[in-house]
């Protein structure tokens, strides 16, 4: 199965570990994620004011590339566009929804991009987690060679996967999609009441203290519930919850570091794929010691 894939900028740099693990996991499941030719930045945030159409041009331009992939035969009758970064997912999905619901907005955006073919409004933006769910977590389970038993994981969802409701991949108040996935991998899933509380997002650039306060709440609560690690699908959540542990530790010396995985890294471990696809060197808090302790990685 070949599906168009939108990586987004951060998956090519800081979050290369999210990309390499995703692609390898997909391959194991016989899914070939074909990178969109000539993709551009999605804009990272959905433009919220009603009079601002110009910022929807970037996300919609990416959706035109999906049409082109179908026309050129790179994929066959495949209108789904898979993303794995939560922010890209939210921005692309919301802009798509806006132009589908407001044909006059779509006309204006199409007119503005007069060098491109028109966007016809047929693309469906889906998150990789949703693709796995649609395929069936039992299919994931079939590929597990090293069950993550004894690994206590608290899934973290953040905002962009869940809210607002019209683009969320799960119940915004009680999401379970990661729980279902992690159980298929054999992990012991820990419920963290802060699983859907914002990590502070882009405030991390100039409000570091506010962000590390939130990080402390989210991480220490997960630990109180018994978690040994947490999972995320968002490179910005990962930065705020992983890298900002340095600041959390400075403010709360009693705080114990906790590894933060991309959910795809844990699938990769459970599938027994080569460690190089996990790129653990890009995780800030060392995740390997825990995996070795649980005999999921060799010493």
């Amino acid at each position, binding site marked *: 199965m070949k599906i168009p894939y939108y990586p987004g900028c951060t998956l090519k740099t800081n979050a290369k570990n999210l990309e390499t693990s995703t692609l390898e996991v997909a391959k194991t499941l016989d899914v070939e994620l074909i990178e969109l030719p000539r993709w551009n930045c999605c804009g990272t945030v959905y433009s919220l004011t009603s009079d601002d159409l110009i910022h929807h041009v970037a996300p919609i331009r990416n959706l035109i590339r999906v049409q082109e992939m179908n026309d050129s035969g790179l994929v066959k009758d495949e209108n789904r566009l898979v993303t794995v970064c939560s922010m890209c997912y939210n921005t692309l999905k919301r802009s798509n929804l806006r132009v589908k619901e407001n044909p006059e907005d779509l006309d204006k955006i199409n007119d503005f991009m007069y060098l491109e073919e028109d966007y016809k409004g047929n693309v469906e933006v889906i998150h990789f987690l949703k693709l796995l769910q649609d395929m069936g977590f039992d299919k994931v389970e079939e590929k597990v060679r090293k069950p993550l038993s004894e690994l206590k994981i608290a899934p973290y969802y953040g905002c962009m996967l869940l809210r607002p409701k019209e683009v969320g991949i799960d119940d915004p108040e009680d999401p379970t999609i990661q729980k279902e996935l992690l159980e298929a991998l054999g992990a012991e899933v820990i419920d963290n009441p802060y699983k859907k*509380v*914002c990590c*502070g997002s882009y405030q991390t650039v100039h409000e570091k203290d506010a962000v590390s306060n939130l990080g402390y709440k989210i991480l220490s609560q997960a630990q109180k519930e018994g978690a040994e690690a947490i999972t995320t699908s968002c490179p*910005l959540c990962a*930065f705020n919850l992983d890298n900002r542990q340095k600041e959390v530790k400075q403010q709360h010396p009693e705080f114990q570091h906790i590894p933060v995985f991309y959910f795809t890294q844990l699938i990769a471990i459970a599938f027994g794929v080569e460690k190089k696809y996990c790129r653990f060197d890009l995780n800030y808090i060392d995740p390997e010691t825990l995996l070795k302790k649980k005999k999921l990685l060799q010493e």
Partner: protein
Amino acid sequence: MREKVVITSKNVEFLDKVSEMSGQPITRCDQCGVCSGSCPMVDEMDITPSQMMRKVQLGQEEVLGTRAMWLCASCFTCTVRCPRGLDLSKVAEALRQITLRKAVDHIDIRKIPDHEMKKLPQIALISSFRKFTG
């Protein structure tokens, strides 16, 4: 302490402007406080999200001087919970945009330290620039 509130045409004009930019029927807010109880940033704010809504309802332009509207991280928790179906994230965005469109930036990109610039993921930088510079 009681405070006499006078509504002039200027106040109405401000309310209309924010309502139009946000696309939200702001007068529908009945001050239940669910947004303030849900906001992850409320501890850091000078006024709560429901106070922000009240000030906009009254057309009090000084709301533009508050820290709250800048601390909103557009997490949409209030949006999914508002019993009146209001999207406060859009109201906060309208307030930020009113300021940014006057060419007044909230952050100075040059002041981000080099060591931070090197490690921050692109999505953090781009979204910050999108939200805090005009």
